[in-house]
């Protein structure tokens, strides 16, 4: 079942959830709970926010692991309906989902942006004016307004001017790539790309020192045109898949967990690397650690950090969960998955990664 990634769902239990993926099982929508009321459970290890008249915990998967693990266990006990037990994954995969009968309201990024862009300029505050101007700039790419959306705090209305990000959604993978090409070549007096210092701040937040050298990290990030600043406000652009272009269908494949591995290969196709979950098709793979060498066809990731990391022909290395994929029709193959939710509450959180490697590495 298709449902656009990055839409926001509020539930009748007061949770604010972010849709996590574009393809979903039929009986629920896969999400990441973003803000969770603190009446039933709370954790001081997670940040608090006061939203919609409630004290909420912001679920941060980079919080202290011991407390995060405890919190997730409590969450499972308090909100069992929000845990999706996948029938297509073998292994202890953790998915969150909003059952259809728990949906209170869905906030649609496309509809929200269309409403926003139709507002008279004098009704907009500074933050919304910046969003308005930024979208007008993006429309210079040739994409239509209907190809864009706005999400998170801007969509919900609880943003803070000068502090909250602008989160733009682009509908359709071709559109997203087209926009990235436009941004590579474009300039605007209010546009500034992240500099090394900005990227290093991000890098520190993700505790990635053990995996990337600073130089590697900066080299990988520097060519990303999905993040930057517009009028000094951080913007992030997300790609989402339209219904006819999802790169997998729920229930058409079975996934069997094998082991944590490190794999290298050459990117054969990065077209699907702009969405979540994203994927790099690779060739000439070699498992260097964790399992006997088997041919790996895909590196799949759930973390947006790995979007557009590697380009066709580049060498990529990833550490993640090796899975044997058995499609309903067609031949079995292997894939490596980085960033399942359960990775964040295990030692995989520090181990998993994807990076571009130089030929001499």
């Amino acid at each position: 079942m298709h449902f656009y990634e990055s839409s926001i769902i509020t539930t009748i239990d007061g949770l604010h959830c972010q849709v996590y993926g574009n393809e979903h099982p039929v009986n629920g929508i896969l999400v990441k709970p973003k803000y969770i009321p603190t009446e039933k459970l709370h954790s001081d290890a997670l940040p608090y926010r006061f939203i919609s008249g409630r004290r909420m915990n912001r679920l941060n998967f980079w919080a202290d692991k011991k407390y995060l693990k405890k919190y997730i266990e409590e969450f499972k006990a308090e909100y069992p309906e929000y845990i999706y037990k996948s029938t297509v994954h073998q292994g202890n995969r953790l998915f969150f989902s909003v059952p259809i009968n728990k949906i209170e309201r869905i906030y649609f990024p496309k509809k929200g942006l269309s409403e926003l862009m139709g507002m008279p300029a004098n009704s907009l505050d500074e933050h919304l004016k910046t969003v308005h101007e930024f979208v007008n700039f993006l429309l210079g790419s040739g994409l239509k307004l209907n190809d864009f959306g706005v999400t998170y705090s801007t969509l919900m209305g609880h943003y803070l001017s000068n502090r909250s990000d602008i989160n733009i959604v682009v509908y359709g993978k071709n559109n997203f790539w087209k926009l990235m090409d436009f941004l590579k070549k474009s300039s605007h007096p209010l546009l500034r790309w992240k500099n090394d210092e900005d990227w290093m701040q991000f890098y520190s937040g993700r505790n990635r020192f053990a995996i990337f050298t600073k130089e590697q990290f900066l080299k990988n990030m520097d060519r990303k045109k999905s993040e930057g600043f517009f009028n000094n406000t951080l913007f992030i652009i997300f790609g989402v898949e339209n219904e006819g272009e999802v790169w997998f269908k729920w229930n058409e494949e079975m996934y069997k967990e094998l082991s944590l591995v490190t794999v290298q290969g050459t990117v054969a196709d990065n077209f699907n690397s702009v969405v979540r979950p994203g994927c790099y098709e690779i060739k000439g793979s070699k498992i260097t650690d964790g399992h006997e060498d088997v041919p790996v066809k895909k590196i799949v990731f759930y973390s947006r950090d790995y979007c557009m990391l590697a380009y066709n022909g580049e060498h990529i290395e990833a550490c993640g969960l090796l899975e044997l994929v058995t499609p309903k029709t067609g031949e079995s193959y292997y894939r490596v998955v980085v960033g399942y939710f359960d990775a964040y509450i295990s030692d995989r959180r520090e181990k998993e990664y994807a990076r571009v490697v130089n030929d001499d590495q």
Partner: protein
Amino acid sequence: MAHFYESTLIDTTDGFQCKSYANEHPQGCVIVKPKYVPKEAIAGEGLKYRFLFEKCLVRFNLFAKKEDLNNYVSQFRKKFPDYIYDCPLTNNWFFVVPKNKIKAVHDCRKGLRELLNVPEKDLDPYLRLVRELVDFLAKSGVDSKNLGITHSTLLGNYTPGKSDIDIVIYGKANGWKILDYLKNANHSKLHWKTDGEWAEYYKEHKTSESLHFTEQEYVRHMSRKRYEGMFGGTVFTLFTVEEPNETWFKWGEEKYEPVGTATINGTVSSHYNSHVRPGFYEIENGSLLKNESGIKKFDGKIPIKRVVTYSIPFVQQAIQGEKIKACGLLELVTPKKAKPYYRIVIGYFDAYLNDRREKEFLKVV
């Protein structure tokens, strides 16, 4: 007939955000003022817009240009008749939310309790200021359990440095306790408009209400009020609401017959209920000064006993012993168990749509 706290936000199934506009309500509905209505429902020419909760919303404003407001209300009435209560007791009408149209009620008291439980480190400067203000108000002796937050402070769609802090005080005695405390209390962040600032405000913000006051009169009335001030550079407003057992009237226990627009005078014998909405001043020696609309049915033997206000600018306008003059809708009140009397009502919704908007006022003379 039914109690529902004033100043409480209600989301409706049609996507409106409304604010309850009284503490006592007819059976089956809540009297409200629509606050935000989706533009896709009614375009709202001449009114302001806000982008909130994924939608372009029309900000309903009773002080909008009368022609625009009339146009809007007329469309609203046609499109959403369920939200209009044609009241058989007053022969007037109210905006309401029928109970079956309530989607969510935002509990002001619970909201503040939740906010007070958020660690200081996780609060932005605006919310920190709210906390500090609440701590300061609690020094009056009113427990923070009897306080709440409402509007954007509660829902989180505030703009720091721009949005007011809206505090609800539960209980009339608590309301007076805080208002009295604020007469003399000091805080480094607290600022009341000086006479000079009120005079400046008067010059810059001419409203239908202030037209009835000279600059000097306006300053004198406003400078002693304590329901609105500045805290840390942010405007705060205090709304006192009635507990269920202390509402000053019960719906259905009186009938109100509109007589016409009138100006009266009298002496305030009690202002105890003047800090709530609707609020009222009990008066004695009330007399009809001006018969604005050719009132024929006025019976001079029936006393004029009350001046009622739905309009916030006229709350806490006068105190016991003061002589007042007021213009509004004269109503003959027939209680079920007492003698009839007259009252003047200022600020019914219909007043904003007709010539009473410019005529209504309440002042100490």
